[in-house]
Each structure stands twice: as C-alpha cells, then as structure tokens.
C-alpha cells in the first residue's frame, strides 16, 4: 500500500549511498523540487542520477549536483544556457556523463518497468553514441541494442494523488513521470494534493497506484 508521508524528509528516508535515482522533469516542468531538496539535505552520496537534463540554474537538480552527491548523470541534453553548475563539475572531472538519445533514454526506462531485457532501436545507429553496442540490420535498416535502466529510487512530481497512490499529471509536467514510476524499486511522488479514494475518475488515472510507494504533498 502507498504511504502518505507527512513531510519530504520522511518521504526520502532510507535511500542508500550509491543508489541509481530517476528524477522526473523536463527542465522545470514536472521536476520534483521538494524531493530533490530533501535528498540534498539528507546528504546521500555516490548517486547515479537519471534525468533528461543536467540541471538548470542553481535550484533543484542543479543544487543537488553542486553538493557533489552525484557521481554520474545519465541524460540526453546536459548543455543548456543555464547549466553552469554541471558544466563546471564536468570540466573539473568531478562528474561522469552518459549521454543518450532522448527517446532511447525514455524507452530504456520504460523497458525496465515493463520487464524487457533489451531492445533494438534505429535511433543512434551508425553514430558515435552506438559505439561499442551490438548492432543489427533489421528489415534493411541499421539498429542498435539498448538495455533497460533499472533504478533503486524514482523521484517524480504529479499533480494529484488519491489515497491509493493513483496519480494524474498536469500538461507537459507529465513527461518522464509515468515511466520513471514503473522502473524503480521505490517510487516517491510529490503532488499538490491527495484526495480520498474514489475521487479520481478511474478512466483518467495515468499512473496506477501499484507503481507508487510514497506520496507527499508539497506546495
């Protein structure tokens, strides 16, 4: 059953050093700022973080990177106008970077949650991001073998949860949330409100509560 945590510190308890942490969000939209801040306060280190980007400005994911808690980041687009925190760490050799095409990143997360062992995709075939990976021609087209990204923890932001952990999202804040929720052993969602069971229309639930372990209400 899902736990409705009283605060974010309680919500993030028990995350071990060395964990792989999926963090939702595409830029600021859907980024679980309160959970990231709590993980930063707890100080858990040696983390591998998976996000589309590598932090913007000096808040949220960027602030977590700045503490040195993150050993490695897996993302599609680390270089942005305001990704100065990551750029400095990277230039100093203090963070490891794995760049993945965005759709492969998403599908690797989806595959982990769906029990898929690996998959062939045309995306990236013949490019330097496919170097060292198994390649195969399928129907006359070059493909590359990609493996799932299994995680210890997922930190996501949704709009509303019910007491069963069912989640609905809001607009483009949805992005990686639904797939990340499925791919981690411990999924923690921050939401704007929790409503009683039976309040959400079952037809509109995006993430069923089976995937969600802890929920916390944040501003």
């Amino acid at each position, binding site marked *: 059953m899902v736990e409705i945590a009283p605060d974010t510190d309680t919500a993030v308890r028990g995350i071990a050093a060395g964990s792989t942490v999926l963090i939702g969000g*595409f830029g600021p939209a859907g980024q679980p700022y309160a959970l990231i801040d709590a993980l930063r306060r707890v100080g858990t280190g040696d983390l591998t973080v998976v996000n589309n980007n590598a932090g913007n400005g000096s808040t949220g994911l960027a602030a977590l990177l700045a503490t040195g808690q993150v050993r490695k980041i897996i993302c599609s687009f680390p270089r942005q106008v305001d990704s100065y925190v990551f750029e400095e760490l990277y230039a100093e050799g203090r963070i490891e970077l794995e*760049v993945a*095409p*965005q*759709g492969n990143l998403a*599908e690797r997360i989806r595959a982990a949650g769906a029990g898929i062992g690996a998959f062939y995709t045309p995306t990236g075939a013949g490019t*330097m991001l496919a170097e060292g990976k198994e390649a195969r021609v399928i129907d006359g087209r070059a493909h590359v073998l990609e493996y799932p990204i299994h995680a210890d923890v997922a930190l996501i932001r949704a709009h509303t949860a019910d007491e069963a952990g069912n989640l609905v999202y809001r607009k483009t804040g949805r992005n990686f949330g639904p*797939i990340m929720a499925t791919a981690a052993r411990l999924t923690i969602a921050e939401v704007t409100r929790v409503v009683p069971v039976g309040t959400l229309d079952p037809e509109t639930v995006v993430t069923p509560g089976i995937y969600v372990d802890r929920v916390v209400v944040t501003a």
Partner: protein
Amino acid sequence: MIEHPAPLTRVELARLVARDIPPNSYVNLGIGQPTAVADHLDPAHGVVLHTENGMLGMGPHAHGDDVDPDLLNAGKTPVTELPGASYFDHAQSFAMMRGGHLDVCVLGAFQVAGDGTLANWHTGAPDAIPAVGGAMDLAVGAKDVFVMMTLFDKTGAPKLVRECTYPVTGLRCVSRVYTDQAVFHLDGDRVLVTETYGTTMSELSARLDVPLTTAP
C-alpha cells in the same frame, strides 16, 4: 527549376519551409531557427505541432497571465495549448517519432551529406559537452526530415557536403534541404536542385563538392 534573383533572409526561409508543409500534417519543429517556421503556418491549414516533451496541438508562445510553468516547449519556453491538444508521457512521445507517425520534422544542421546523412548535434570538439536531446530520434523517425540552414558556414565552407566531417546524427535521413541560396530534394542517390536564390546552377556546382541534378 526556378531561379530567384536574391538570397533568402531568415524570415523568408522560414516562410518557404512553412509553404511546403502539407495541410493537416503532424509536424515537429526543432529548437532554434526551425521554431520560426510556426509563425508562417496558416492556421486554416490545420497543421498540428508536436513537442517532444509530450504534447500535440502546441500553440504560440505564452505571455503574461498565460504563462504556465507546466506548459513548456522543447526549448523550455512557456507555450499555449490549442483546442484538440493532447498530452502524453515521454515514451509515447518518442514512440510517436520512432514509429513514423510524424509527417515532417524540421531541423537545423552543421552538415548534410548528399545521401541525406545528417550532422547536427555535436561539433566533435574535445572540450564540447555532447548533448543530443531528441535529434537522433527525430532524424530516424519522421516520414520527412527537412533541414533549414545557411548553405555556407561563416568561413565560406559548404554545409551540403559529400561526406559529413562532424559526428553524424542519422544516416540517409534528410529528404529536403532549405538554404538561403537554394532548395535541394534528396532521394538517397541524387541531389535535385528545385530553386535557387541569388545564385545559379553553375555557381552552385562550382562551390559544392556534390553532384547536382536540375529538377525538371
């Protein structure tokens, strides 16, 4: 082939690309110059814009009270939602691309090879941070990949080349190249010049290391 007297400005180039996007098509406009194509699409043509972060039916940029932190485009700029819009997660957004459901995507480029191979994500410079985003997925997934770029770089070197020297984004994926000086249709074997702007076929043939064919 049509010869026009003057090269295209950036605005004229965006308008030209918009002209060639079929009515009622599903389209992804890449970050940067391609974004400007949206300004020239006729709303009556019913083109539906896709944004990689999980939306179909994206509207114009949001201003003032319309800004919503949960409603951003691929460049993380606040946008609006049009009637008939839909939202979906990232896996579905990229399945939509990879699965060949988008009719057209428009991308910028460092280089395009005559066979349609695209280089647009990384300069390969040792100190450059590699950042690919959705470029490789769009390149292999959209039914038609349009590139818009200047035909020559700042040093005067052609960007339509025999073979890409920059790291490639996708193999043999570009179908059209729109530049300030000419429009090229690529069918995998031949490079057809359909229109020129402020230049001639003989000038283009002299400056480009790619065999050119004149479209009938």
